[in-house]
Each structure stands twice: as C-alpha cells, then as structure tokens.
C-alpha cells in the first residue's frame, strides 16, 4: 500500500488566486453586458461609472456625512440593545421565574421583523433619528438577548459545582463563572446583533429619515441616478464588512481561550 499525500494542485491554484479569479469574473459579468448595450444604463450602470460616482461622492464629503449619520444611529441603537439584551439575558438566566414570565412576551415579539415596526416608529417618533434608534435597538436586541441567556445556561453544572465547592459566593459566581462562561455565546450574539443593526438602520432610513446612507440611496433612486445608488450600496456593504471584521477581532481578544474555533471560521 502506497500513501501519497503530496499536494497535486501546485502553487497556481492557491486560495488567493481563486478569490481573485472570482472578483474578476464578477466584474466581467457586470461590465460586459453594459458595454454591449444589453442593459439600460439607468438600470445598471457599468462598473466604471459607479466607481466615478463613488469617488465623487466621497470627495464631496456627502457620502462621508451620510455614512457618519448612519453609523451614529447604529452606535446608539446598538448600545441600547446591548445594555438591555445583556441585562435581561443575565437576569432571565439566573431566575427561572423571570424566565417563565418573560418567555411568552419575547416569543410574541420575536417573529415581528424589526422593519415591520417602521410605520409605528415613525408615528411615535417622527422622521429622523428616533425611528432609526428604535428599530436598530429592536433588531439588535434579540440576538444579543438570546445569546446572553443561552450563554449563561451553557455554563456546565460541573463548573458551577466546582465553584461552589471552592467557596464561591453569589457575586464571584456571577463575575468569575457565569459571565466569562457565557462570553463565547455573548460575543457571537453581539456580532450578529451588529450585523442586524446595520441592516435595520439602512431600511429605517429608506422611509423614516432625511439623512444617512439609506436615505441617500432612496433619494438617488428617485432622481434616477443609479450610479450613485450603486455607489451608496457599495459603501453600505464596505462598512458592514468592516464592522464584521472589527467584531471578529474583538471576539479574539475577549475570548482568547477559543482561538481554535475562530481559526476554523476563517478557512
């Protein structure tokens, strides 16, 4: 029996080059139909037009302003969701009675997509920051809360027993056992929550605001400037991606004992 495990692919087909090929194909699939007049430019501008619009919007500062407005709304809404989500997650984890009481309420609210709250949010808070804060907070809340609860419950009974047998009181149990033990779940909840928050702010701005990236792409659609719409979408995508990377870095620092599982995610 011969076992030959040499890498037959060779240096050409590395992961990087496959990624690169993928980008090139997407760009070609986008560019070629436009070049050969298969699509109206008002429907799908060619990549070069979009790039020009992107550069122009960035230079003029308009896009930066919109981006900052959206990010600010995410920040506030996410902060509210984090405080409420972790607070309620921890309390329901510790108290079974509270858990039983709160559970039906959450199960009723959970299936309603945050964006479905937009009309009522506009009615309550008017146009502008209000609805955005509200919907972002609502959207980010559920992943954070659910993961905080699951995280604390995931701390194994053996760990809790070990802590008791070493003389841990309630406070130490919370700070040194339950919360750190819940962190892996919690951090995933925060990462998901941030993604949802970003999604929610854009949608909320589409109808409920007069500033921000969501509002900007809606406005540009109405004035038939599709190149600016796409440029805005690219900006939205880029920011979303950056926030995701930020959270993953945070995850590494906060949960250093789980580095293995993080490495697997990247592959």
């Amino acid at each position: 029996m011969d076992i030959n495990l040499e890498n037959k692919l060779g240096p050409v087909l590395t992961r990087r080059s496959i990624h690169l090929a993928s980008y090139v194909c997407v760009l070609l699939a986008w560019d070629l139909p436009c070049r050969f007049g298969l699509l109206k430019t008002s429907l799908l501008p060619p990549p070069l037009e979009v790039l020009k619009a992107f550069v122009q919007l960035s230079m003029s500062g308009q896009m930066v302003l919109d981006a900052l407005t959206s990010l600010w709304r995410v920040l506030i809404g996410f902060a509210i969701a984090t405080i409420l989500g972790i607070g309620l997650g921890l309390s329901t984890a510790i108290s079974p009675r509270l858990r039983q009481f709160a559970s039906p309420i959450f199960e009723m609210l959970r299936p309603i997509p945050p964006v479905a709250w937009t009309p009522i949010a506009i009615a309550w808070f008017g146009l502008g920051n209000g609805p955005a804060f509200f919907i972002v907070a609502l959207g980010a809340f559920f992943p954070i809360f659910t993961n905080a609860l699951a995280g604390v419950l995931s701390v194994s009974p053996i760990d809790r027993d070990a802590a008791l047998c070493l003389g841990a009181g309630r406070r130490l149990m919370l700070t040194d056992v339950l919360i750190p033990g819940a962190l892996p779940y919690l951090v995933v909840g925060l990462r998901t929550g941030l993604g949802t928050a970003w999604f929610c702010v854009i949608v909320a701005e589409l109808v409920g605001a007069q500033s921000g990236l969501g509002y900007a792409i809606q406005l540009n659609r109405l004035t038939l400037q599709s190149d600016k719409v796409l440029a805005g979408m690219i900006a939205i995508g880029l920011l979303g991606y950056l926030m995701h990377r930020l959270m993953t870095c945070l995850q590494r620092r906060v949960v250093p004992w789980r580095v293995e599982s993080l490495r697997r995610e990247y592959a």
Partner: protein
Amino acid sequence: MTFGRTCDPTQAETLAGVSFSVPRGSFTSVVGPSGCGKTTLIRIIAGLLTPTTGRVTVDGVFITGPSPHRTVIFQDYGLFEWKTVMENVEFGLKAKGLPTGERRKVAQRYIDLVHLTGSEDKYPSELSGGMKQRAAIARALAVEPRCVLMDEPFSALDSQTRLLLQEEIVEIWESTRKTIVMVTHNVEEAVFLSDRVVVLSRGPARVALDMEVDLVRPRAPKMRSESRFREITDALWEVLRR
C-alpha cells in the same frame, strides 16, 4: 477528624444504606461496580446533594452544603476553561478574600507542588489530560481544605498518565497529609493509594466490605507487583464479583 456518615438514597434508591467513618489524615477509597452510586455518594459528602435520610458529619458537625473545607476533584477536571492555570488555582483563594499578591504566592506554591511550574499562563485547552488533572489538584489543595474528595479523578486519562499521577498523588498526600476520600472503579488504584478501602455492592448500594490496607508507607511503584498487594486486590475483587 472523624467523618461519620449515614446516608441514603435520593429519588430512585441509589444508595440503600451506606455508613462509614473516615479518620482524619487518612486516605480512603470507595470502590464499587459501575452505576452503584459512587458519584452520588461523593456528591452527598461534598454537600452538593442532600440524602433523603441520614447525614454527613465532619468533626461532629452536620454539613449543610458545599464548602471549601471539602473541595472536590471531578472526573472531567472541572477546570474553568476561561481562566488560566494560575487564575484557576487562585479561584478558591479569591473566594476567601485574599489580596492579589498573597493569592499569587500561595497559588504558585501549589502549582510548583504539582509540577506545573511554567504553565501558569496557559489555558486548560492548551493542557494535556494529566496536566489538567494536576491543575485541578492544585486548585483543590490551595484553599487548604480539611478534606479532599475525588470522583474517579484518573479515569479520563490514559493508563500511563494514570499510573504516574497515582504516584504523584501519593507523594502529595504524604507531604500534606490531607484527609482524602476517593471514589474509583479501579481496584489496583484503590489499594495502591489508600489506607482503607470501602467496597460498595451493586445498586442500590450498601457497604459490602470495609477493610484496611496494611501495605507499608511510603508506597513505591514496585509494590504493585508484590504478593501482598495481589492478595489484597484479589480479596477485593472477590467481594466485587458477588
């Protein structure tokens, strides 16, 4: 220290009536067939479980719950995976309220005792099974308990590491002279380590035998092949088979 116990079952009649005393500073093993209720027994002694009848007394006082005076070493180590070795060993001392500097010194002493010097800042996921168990031992000893309880501490280890750790435990016991109650299904291990072996019957368990191990101390690895050792283990196996 006397450790008298009369305990009984919880829900499904796990223990039918187990009663024995553990003298202060002695090493007592409890052996029995799988499922006879050994783990239930150790959890009752630890204070994690309340027996339906009977009580555990330590120095004449009934116990009311878990306490750092009766620390436990679990089969699956029970190390906090989010804490480093040092932080794990310090945990009990933190619970006691010791200031940081002192905590570190005491913890370091026990880390050195179990030969884990140099691994203080490692996380449990970076340790081998044997190292994890050593860390668990250091953590259990650092609070200077009156009694250490061990629930099949070596069964998750491979046989080589198991034998090595048995020898280390004997050395540690000889230098610290803690009262130890260890539950195991491995008869040879029980005989090698203990002064007394209590054999439990099949579940619902009763005490089938309570005998002294009269091998000389300090115990040496080669004792395992001596005839007296064989005699004792054979006698215990006889009882277990019944």
